[in-house]
Structures are given as C-alpha cells and as structure tokens.
C-alpha cells in the first residue's frame, strides 16, 4: 500500500481506486478486531460493512479524517461495537450447544477452550469502552502507545493510566469468575 497520508488525500478527492485500496488494506484488520470482541463472524462482518459505510459518508460530507486513517477506522469500529454491547444484556459465560466439535481434537479440550474464550470476552465486555479499546489495541493488535493515543484522541499518559486500570479491572473480573461468591 502507498503512503497512508497520500492515500487518504486521494480518497478525499473521491478517487474510487483510493477508496477501494483503503477497504482492501484495512478491512481484514477491522474484521479481526471485531471478531475478537464479538466472537460472531456475522456481527464482525456487519461491523466491517458499517465502519466503511460511515467512512464513505464522512468523505462525501467532507468530514472525513485529515490524518491517522487507521486510527480513525478503528475508532468507528470501536464505537459500533460499544453500541452493540450497550444494546444487549451482559453475556454470562456459558457453553454454546450449537458449536460443533472439531473431530480431530479432544472434545473436552475444545469445550474448555470455548469456555475460556467466552470468559475472556465476557470480562472484556464488562470493562469501560475506553479500557476495552486500550487492552485490545495494545495486547491483541500489538499497537504502540503512541498509535493508541491517536486512535483514542487522548494523551499518551492517559492511555498508560487507562491501560493500568483496565488490567486491574480485568484481573478482578477473571478472578471473580473463577471463584464466584
């Protein structure tokens, strides 16, 4: 992909090729991000569609990003996922009876993994939206603090503080789930 800033400037001139290149480059990462948080391929795909639809609308209204395109797209996706979390009741960690077991794997191992996945997603969902965003971008997407600060439009110090509080909250939630009262 060419320089992100140059690509963004071409997109702001409504160049079709640039708009498509942006989609092809960033949509896999947005899907992965949504999938990690939502755990549902249909919802994750919807998140990709909605993120890029909002991006196009912003470009048409000349309200799109002037810089930090990647951070901008992740912020849209994050807001969409946050809305989804708000709309539904908190998820209780439980096994999905419709999940098909991999015939080549150990059934109890697969069930244990599914349960662990649901537990960690449930714990993430209970964080504040900003804490969740920091955790996923930092530890799952591997972003630097500076990139996260741009995506969240916050100073680096605030990002570090959020990161610390998020880890504490996550630790407490996971411990509570292991040792219920």
């Amino acid at each position: 992909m060419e320089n992100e800033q140059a690509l963004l400037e071409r997109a702001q001139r409504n160049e079709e090729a640039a708009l498509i290149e942006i989609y092809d480059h960033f949509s896999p990462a947005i899907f992965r991000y949504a999938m990690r948080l939502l755990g549902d391929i249909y919802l994750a795909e919807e998140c990709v569609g909605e993120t890029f639809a909002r991006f196009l609308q912003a470009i048409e209204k000349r309200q799109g990003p002037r810089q930090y395109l990647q951070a901008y797209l992740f912020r849209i996706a994050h807001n969409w996922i946050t809305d989804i979390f708000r709309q539904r009741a908190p998820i209780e960690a439980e096994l999905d009876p419709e999940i098909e077991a991999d015939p080549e794997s150990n059934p109890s191992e697969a069930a244990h993994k599914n349960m662990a996945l649901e537990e960690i997603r449930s714990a993430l969902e209970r964080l504040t939206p900003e804490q969740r965003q920091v955790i996923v971008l930092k530890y799952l997407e591997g972003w630097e603090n500076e990139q996260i600060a741009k995506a969240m439009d916050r100073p680096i110090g605030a990002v570090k503080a959020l990161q610390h509080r998020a880890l504490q909250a996550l630790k407490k939630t996971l411990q509570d789930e292991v040792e219920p009262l």
Partner: protein
Amino acid sequence: MKKNPETQTDLDVIRQLEILQDQPERDPELAAQTRQKYVSAAHLLSSRAKQTQSTIGLLPALGFKWAELKSQINTAFSRKELQPVFAPIVSILIALSLIFGGATATVYAAQDSQPDELLYSVKTLTEDVRMNLTGNPEQRIDLALTYADQRVAEALLLAAENKAPSIDLANRYNNHIEVALDTLALLEAEDLAVDLVKVQIHLRDQDQLMTKQPELPDQALLQHITRHILTLQGAIEEPLQWQMRYRAGQPVATEEPLPTEEVPLEALDAEDPLPVETTEAYGPGPGEPPVGDDDPATLPGYSDDELYPAPFGYQEQQDGWFHWPWEKDASGTATPPGQKKKP
C-alpha cells in the same frame, strides 16, 4: 529506579488474553458481499463527484446562480439521500406497531432484503406507502430518486451473484423515474432547474454503474435508464420548454426516432391544457385572478375539495384513497389524463 509498568499478575492476565489471538478465517462469501456493496457505494460517490464538477462548468454559461444551486443540491443530497429512509419510516413503524404489533419487526427487517428474498415485497410495500404519503414535490423527487438508486444497486447485486435479472425490479425502477419526471413537470420555474440537474445526475450515475459492471447488465433496466436520459435531453438548457413539452406528452428526445404511432402536433395542441407558443402560457401576473386554463382548479393534480385538498399532485378516487391522476399502462408508463400516450 524505573518502575516496571506490568507486574507479574498483569502478565498473567495478558497471557490469558492470548487465547483471543487465534480467530477463525473470514467467510469468503460474506466478505465478497460486503466488499461488493462498498465498491458500489464508492463508485457512486466517485462518479457523483465527477458529475457535480462537470455540471459546475456548464451552468455559469447558461446563466444559473451556481452558488445557490450547489447549496440546494448539497442540502438535498446530504439530508435526504444519505439518510434516506429512517426519520419518516420511524413514524410509519410506530403507527404500524400500534396496529399490528409484531408485524413492525418484519417491516423493519425487510428494509435490507433483496429482490429474490421473501421480505422484498414488504420492503416495496413500505416504499409505496411512504411515496403515497409524501406530498411535497421536492421530497417526492428525492424519494423517487433514492428508490431508483436502490433498484440499480439491487440489480447490480443480482448480477454480481449471477442471478437472473428481475423484470419486476426494472418496472419498479421505471415507475420511480416516471414519478420523478411527472413531479418535475408540475414544479414552479424557480425550483425546476435545480431538480432537473439532480435527476440528470442520478440518471447518469445509474447509467455508468450499469454499463461499467463486468457481468451481463439487466437489459430492461438499462433500456429504461437510456430512455429517461433521452427524455431529459436539452432540459437544462430550456427547462420551461421541456416542462411544457413533457406536460403536453410530446416527444422530448430528438436523437432517436421512437418506434410508436406518431401523434400529429395539431392534435396535441388541441388537447394541451397549456398554450405553448405565447407568453400567456406563463399565466396571469402576481395578484391577478386565474383565468381559463390557468385556474388551478382546472389543472390536473388538484382536488376540487377546498376544505380537504388532496396531497400534492393527487386526486381522491372513489375508493377513498388519493391517487396520482395520470394513467399508467401495463409497462408502468404514466400519461396525463385525456392525453395520448407518450411514445
């Protein structure tokens, strides 16, 4: 001493997060559908921007006040087309929910359905209801154009999925554009130029989208687009003359002879409710009482009932509903009452 930002317990939590690193692959079919929709939207955005630019160059030479026109077009596009359905649909849904309860969810779910899906007829029904409830001519044109864009997008999606074109879809598209043109024909001169440009931009965008697609295009829909582009030929240069010719049901396109029965001009003049050749065609001056053919009560599209007038352009029929007064033939082509059908 530099403080270690992550303690051992933090590292334990981070290690637990690693289970989320492995994610299933993206479903190729779903991913292709999402991309196809984005690419169509990006193409529409790009071609619309080009059309707007080319129109900017044309209009000053024709004496239009471009700043005013651009502002009106931008307002129309940003407010009505990018958020095409939701505000008024919400009102309809609330009303429906009071009457039918659970049926509302079906109507809402139908909004994203495609022509080959079960809920598509529900979607088109809600479109018809909304169109019938829209009396303001500007909003009516915007709505018709939005629906026409949706029909083109649906045709592109069918083609992308290698599905057969739908004749019903092409007919619905034709109806939408006919509604837009019929409404244009009744607009005041001051609004006419802006809306003519708007309709032309949409038709050219739709034409480009249909002709650029790699798959075999929906020929019936493409023919409708081509015919309507021809109908609007020369309209921007002479909007009032175009309007009078259209209202009179005369052929407005001159490039291709149309293969239908010829109507003698004398016969059309005799039936035309508006005089064409003289300046009296523009009606009496401000404050003067309407005379003869200029009396609104005698023009098509107005109800005689002064207390409860019909919505713009409609007449109340025996069934108690307000109907667009122009007759439509089997193909959906509209013709003013008492006029010979347009070729």
